[in-house]
């Protein structure tokens, strides 16, 4: 079974994706953190990262290319990091600007959330954004995330200070929003 939504597929990274990954990182609008600047990433940098990823059954991250089902086109990147198996995980997403407002990001996030709650059995999913990114906060809230805490004025972007914002969604909140699913993880 592929990680498949209504209009997207989440698939593994391939060498031919690397230039697009560099392009996403080099667009100040599609990546959130000043930490990742400057926007001079090259395909070769991503190739190095790609080649350093080794086989393991004990990985705490997942990295996926978001591909549109109709055109078979790469539209973005979605990942999870810091997985504590059966407990919590942090997710992140970048979507090419051409596909903003298309609903593909929400679709991809729904696919990843289903995977994390149903297959990885996590109890909490977390994400980071900032108060300058109303679009991201709105999308996360639409999916059921709630703002959990913030670090005030800790983001500097486009000459302005913003709060770093952490959002989270509990397992029971996810299953309440998806009554078609049954939560069979043992209660604590």
């Amino acid at each position: 079974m592929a990680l498949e939504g209504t209009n997207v597929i989440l698939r593994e990274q391939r060498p031919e994706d690397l230039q697009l990954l560099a392009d996403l990182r080099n667009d100040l609008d599609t990546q959130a953190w000043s930490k990742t600047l400057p926007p001079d990433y090259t395909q070769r940098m991503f190739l190095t990262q790609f080649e350093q990823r080794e086989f393991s059954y004990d990985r705490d991250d997942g990295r996926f290319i978001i591909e549109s089902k109709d055109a078979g086109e790469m539209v973005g990147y979605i990942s999870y990091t810091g997985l504590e198996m059966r407990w919590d995980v942090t997710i992140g997403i970048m979507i090419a600007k051409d596909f903003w407002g298309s609903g593909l990001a929400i679709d991809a996030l729904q696919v990843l959330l289903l995977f994390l709650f149903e297959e990885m059995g996590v109890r909490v999913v977390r994400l980071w954004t900032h108060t300058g990114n109303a679009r991201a906060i709105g999308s996360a809230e639409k999916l059921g995330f709630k703002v959990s805490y913030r670090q005030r004025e800790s983001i500097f972007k486009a000459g302005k200070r913003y709060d770093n914002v952490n959002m989270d969604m509990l397992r029971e909140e996810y299953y309440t929003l998806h009554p078609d699913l049954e939560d069979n993880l043992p209660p604590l």
Partner: protein
Amino acid sequence: MNENRFSSERLCLRAFEPDDVTVLHAYLNHPSLTGRRYIPWSHSNDIPLSLTQVETILEKWGKGEKQFHLAVVSSGNDKVIGHANCDWGWDPHCPHISLVIAPDYQRQGYGSEVFNLILRYLYENTHAHNVAGGMNDWNQTARAFAQKHGFKETGKMRRAGLRNGEFYDWIGVDILRPEWQALEGA
């Protein structure tokens, strides 16, 4: 003016040395520090630690870049009575700090002296704008301590863990440079 930025009348902050492993091992395993050891994520916050594991912690602290981990030393008896951490690896504008005082030395004002030294160092000798920290929600002592030093609670990361059969949250706290300056009467 005291030229040593890392000492007060009753204590000093210095780098950890290998010989400190015994005292660190002893107080980290004290039951009252369960769940609030402020050690690297790779090590358990509540399971008893071996001497070898504590050596690993000291090694990690010693190798860390863009961070410091200092021993809190009592001037009276030259004993290590705690540890103070600071990490600015994500952004030097917003370092993250934490502090542990060994149980035998708690509630004697040492923690406040350490916090005053560190905040003064960060705001007078670095370009920090937001100094942040955090604690589990059941740690009322730490919450009151942070509040006393001008930190504001900025929310809680839900379900940080499980303790005695109950979920707990992690409370984020921070203090901005202008807030610290106002408290200092600058």
